[in-house]
Structures are given as structure tokens and as C-alpha cells.
């Protein structure tokens, strides 16, 4: 086992830093149903960490615990080594954890540009009254935020639709806009909930490329959920495998691929 502050070198030769986010013995129940059972793992700086598992394994629940949408009954969440008290999702977001959703949660009525701009809301410091009284400062701030947003829009190749209302976009592009909005927050940790769900092969390839580029270019730490094994193995540095709310595997894609429990879970060995 690695120490929390130690770094390691990935299979493709990138150096990964210390632990950013650590989940310790997390248990989450809904009434009598145990969605997550005593799971621990960590996410390290600069890595692409995947959480995989069959449908209903508790992957999305885990992501929702990290982003504050669910509060676990047991266990600790440590962010940058500090124990995080139970938080509302917006407080988690303000700590620098951005996310996307499995079923796309965009502001349908707004343009692509406005959507991505909302990712900058926490960087807008000028208050209501100074905005009204001191126009110059507010404008300078707006320009600054606009520059960041335009850079991200360029990066994700969505310049051609910047003014289009999001409701009119096809599914694949919506997913990309959602990624752009999350990136606009310049997150310390980026959570992607099934970024490739429902996409065709070409869209999947595009999305994979963008995820790798984001990680490479901005050094963003990424945790993603996916049930398409092939995609995950190509993308990620380390993988957590969940099944029926339990962790059944954790390691590099190669380690996980050869793990008998994981093979059983995916091929469907009977659980009795």
C-alpha cells in the first residue's frame, strides 16, 4: 500500500501525486436497503480514477456521497486530509468539487455560453450592491471569467454552438456542454457520472479523448463512473470495482482485469 503523500508512476509513465480525496468505511442505507457497504478507497492528485460495476452496484450512490447529494450513515470523507463534516451539495461544489450527471442536468433554457458561465458563479465575488454602484469592477470580473469560459469552450470544441439554447442540442453535445460547465469551475476534483452513457461509438471516442486531454492539459483529478469495461480500462489509472454495494476490487486496470471476483461479477456467477 502507498502512503497518503507518496506518489506513484502509472502504466503510461505519468506521475500521480498524493491523496486528494479519501473515503473511509463508507456505509449508505436507504431504509433497509444497503446501497454502499463499508467501502474505502482514495483518489490521488492528477489521476483518472474509475468506479465500475454492474447496474445497481452502488456506483452512482458513491458519486453522490462524494458530491454531497447523499450523506452516508457511517464512515468518513476526507478532503485534502481533513475530515469533511456533512455538507449540502452546494457547499461541496464551493470546495472545488464539480460534477456531471448521468441524466444530464443542464439549464435547458439558457445558451451554451450562459450554461458554462454558471460554472464561474463561485468566482464572482462582487456583491449585488457593488455591482449596481461600481460598474467597472464588475465588468473587469466578468471579462476575466469570460476568458476562462471561452478557453474551455475552445478546448472542448463547442465554439460553433456557443449561442445555441441547450434544449436544441443533440445528446452527445449536451454531455460535452455539461463537462464544460464543470470544468469552468476549475475543480480540484471532477466527478463524471457515466460520461459515455447512451453515446454512439464516435461520440464515445470523442468524449474519451476530451477526458484524457482535460486530465493532461489542466492536470485535473478525475473520478468517473462507467459500466462499459473497455472504455474504462483504456482511460483510467486505477479502478474501484463495486458489486451489490461492496468493493470487490481495487487497482490498476490490469490488476482488476485478472481479479476473479471481478470476472465473476461481470459474467454473472450466481450469488448464493
Amino acid at each position, binding site marked *: 500500500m502507498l502512503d497518503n503523500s507518496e506518489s506513484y508512476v502509472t502504466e503510461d509513465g505519468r506521475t500521480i501525486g498524493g491523496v486528494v480525496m479519501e473515503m473511509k468505511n463508507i456505509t449508505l442505507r436507504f431504509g433497509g436497503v444497503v446501497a454502499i457497504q463499508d467501502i474505502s478507497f482514495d483518489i490521488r492528485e492528477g489521476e483518472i480514477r474509475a468506479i465500475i460495476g454492474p447496474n445497481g452496484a452502488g456506483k452512482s450512490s458513491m458519486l453522490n456521497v462524494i458530491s454531497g447529494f447523499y450523506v452516508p450513515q457511517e464512515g468518513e470523507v476526507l478532503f485534502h486530509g481533513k475530515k469533511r463534516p456533512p455538507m449540502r451539495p*452546494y457547499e461541496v*461544489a464551493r470546495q472545488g468539487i464539480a460534477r456531471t450527471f448521468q441524466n444530464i442536468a443542464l439549464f*435547458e*433554457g439558457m445558451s451554451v455560453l450562459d450554461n458554462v458561465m454558471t460554472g464561474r*458563479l463561485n468566482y464572482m465575488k462582487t456583491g*449585488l450592491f457593488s455591482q*449596481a454602484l461600481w460598474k467597472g469592477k464588475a465588468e473587469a470580473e466578468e471579462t476575466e471569467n469570460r476568458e476562462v469560459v471561452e478557453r474551455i469552450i475552445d478546448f472542448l470544441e463547442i465554439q460553433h454552438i456557443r449561442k445555441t439554447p441547450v434544449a436544441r442540442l443533440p445528446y452527445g453535445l449536451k454531455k460535452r456542454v455539461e463537462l464544460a*460547465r464543470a470544468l469552468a469551475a476549475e475543480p480540484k476534483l471532477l466527478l463524471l457520472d457515466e460520461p459515455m452513457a447512451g453515446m454512439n461509438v464516435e461520440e464515445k471516442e470523442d468524449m474519451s479523448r476530451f477526458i484524457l486531454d482535460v486530465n493532461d492539459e489542466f492536470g485535473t483529478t478525475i473520478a468517473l463512473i462507467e459500466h462499459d469495461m473497455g472504455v474504462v480500462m483504456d482511460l483510467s489509472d486505477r479502478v474501484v470495482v463495486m458489486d451489490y454495494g461492496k468493493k470487490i476490487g481495487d487497482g490498476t486496470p490490469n490488476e482488476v482485469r485478472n481479479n476473479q471476483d471481478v470476472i465473476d461479477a461481470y459474467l454473472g456467477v450466481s450469488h448464493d
Partner: protein
Amino acid sequence: MPEQLVFAMEVTLNGLMAGVLYALVALGFVLIYKASGIFNYAQGVLALFAAMTLVGIMQGQVPFSHLINAVFGGHITHFGWNVPGAVAIALTVGVMVLLAWLVQVLVMKHLVGQEPIILFMATIGLAYFLEGVADLMWGSEIKTLDVGLPQGINLWIDETTFNIFGYGFFIDNLDIVATVIAALLVAGLVAFSQYTKQGRAMRAVADDHQAALSVGISLNFIWVLVWSVAGFVALVAGIVWGTKSGVQFSLSLIALKALPVLMLGGFTSIPGAIVGGLIIGVGEKLFEFAVGPLVGGATENWFAYVLALLFLVFRPQGLFGEKIIERV
């Protein structure tokens, strides 16, 4: 120019002005509905409460004086001072913000995620509760409200139209001022929602709660903000209507006038509320002018509702409402 046409012009102008007042009330509904999906039955009572609070503060009334006197046996009713209009308005805005916060913390916060009908019921309860509180706080007598808005016939329009048509239009100064105030209010609201951080956050919440949370917006804060803004709009409507017809409990019934406006304009559209208000205002005045004499008058009482009914049948989402698309 034929006499009838000149009359019709005057009626139309008066109708536009009345429409502005309807729009003013409808605006408050739209704001809350857009941001939280709550149809706020208490909007009319908010206007009443705001107007009563304003008058009470201006006249230096002791709030809850009946209650205090009944419990402690005193005879206090007034502090013995008068507060100038501008200061009183500022204080009333403060009261409305406090009220917004109380509504959110005590009522709405506990109903997050409930069915719209339950939220609607909660606002009905809120309406009656607020009406009771307003009564207890400031008493139930009819009061005159004068914050210095000009009233009476506008002589310049009267003279000018007399010179052109040989007939002087009767346009009330208060209606003109109300139109200007409403225009400023709408411009202010648009600027707020388009160009400020809080306005952006408000639009975001109106669009998608989950997404709003994920970019770090506190729903609680935004809802307090929305109720405050609705309270402010209610205050403006209360001032205009209160100046026009006195501050009395029937003021809360202006909410009923806003309903047909909303059905025309759509519950989610600010321009819709304005256009809807104008159409109803002009429509009912012109209808009364043209058809009223044939049926014995008093068509103004029902015209708006019949028009709204027609809209419900043929275009239920209103003129500007979000399109209802059903995907199968």
C-alpha cells in the same frame, strides 16, 4: 375624426394604464412560479400586508397595539411621530425581506420536493395567516396611503387632446406614474436577472435545481431572494393600488385580477405578464365601451375571466408560456 373613435382612443389609453396595474400584480406570481414552481396564492395578501405595513410605519402606529392593550390594559395606539414616505418605504422593504426569510425557513424549506398542489395549499394557508397577522398588527380600518404620488386629471393631456380632437381625454396622473414605475421595475428586474451574479443564480435555480446545486448555488438563499423580490413587487403594487383606492382588506383581491392575466400571458413569462395585463386592461375597457351598453353594463367584472376561459380551451400554456410537448 368621428366622435366614437376619439372615445375609443381614450378608453384604450385608460385600458393600457389599468393593464399596467394588473401586470404589476401578475409579475409577483410569475417570479415565484418561475424560480420555485410554487403558485403563490398569497401574492395578493403580500401586497395588502406591504401596503398596511407602509401606512402603519408612516403614521407611527404601534404594531400589535390591540393585542398589547388587551393583555397589558394600556391605551397606546401611536408612537406619536410620522415617518417620511421614503424612509417608511425603505423600512417596509426590510420587513418584506424578513417576511421572505421567515416564509422560507418556517414553511417552504420543509416542503422541498413536495407535490405542487401541496406547495399551493401551503401558500393558501400562508395567505390567511398573513391576513390575520396584518389585521392584528395594524388594525382593520380603511386607511389612505399618500407617499406623494401625484393624483387627479393630467391637464396637459386634457388640453393637448382638446386642441387636436376637440375633446379632452381624462387620464389620471397616478396611472401615468404607475406606468413609469412599472416600466422601471421591469427594466430593473431584467437587468438584475441578466447581469448580476444573484440574478444568474436565480435563473439557474428556475431552470434546474440539481444542476444549480452542482455549480454551488444555495437553493435556500435563492428562494429567500425570490420571495424578497416578490415581496418588493407586492409592495410596489400595494403602493399604487393603495394610493388609488385606499388600503383595505379587499386589496388582497387584486390577486384575482391577476389570474386571467397569468392565463393569457403564461405563468412562466415576465413579458407574458406584461402583455397579458395590457390585453386584459384594454380588452375589458373596450368591451365595456362597445358591448356594455347593449347588455346593461358591468361587463368589466367578468370579461377577463371569460377571456381567460377561452385561452384555457384553445391555448392552455398562454401566449408566452413554455410549450407543452408530450413525447411518447
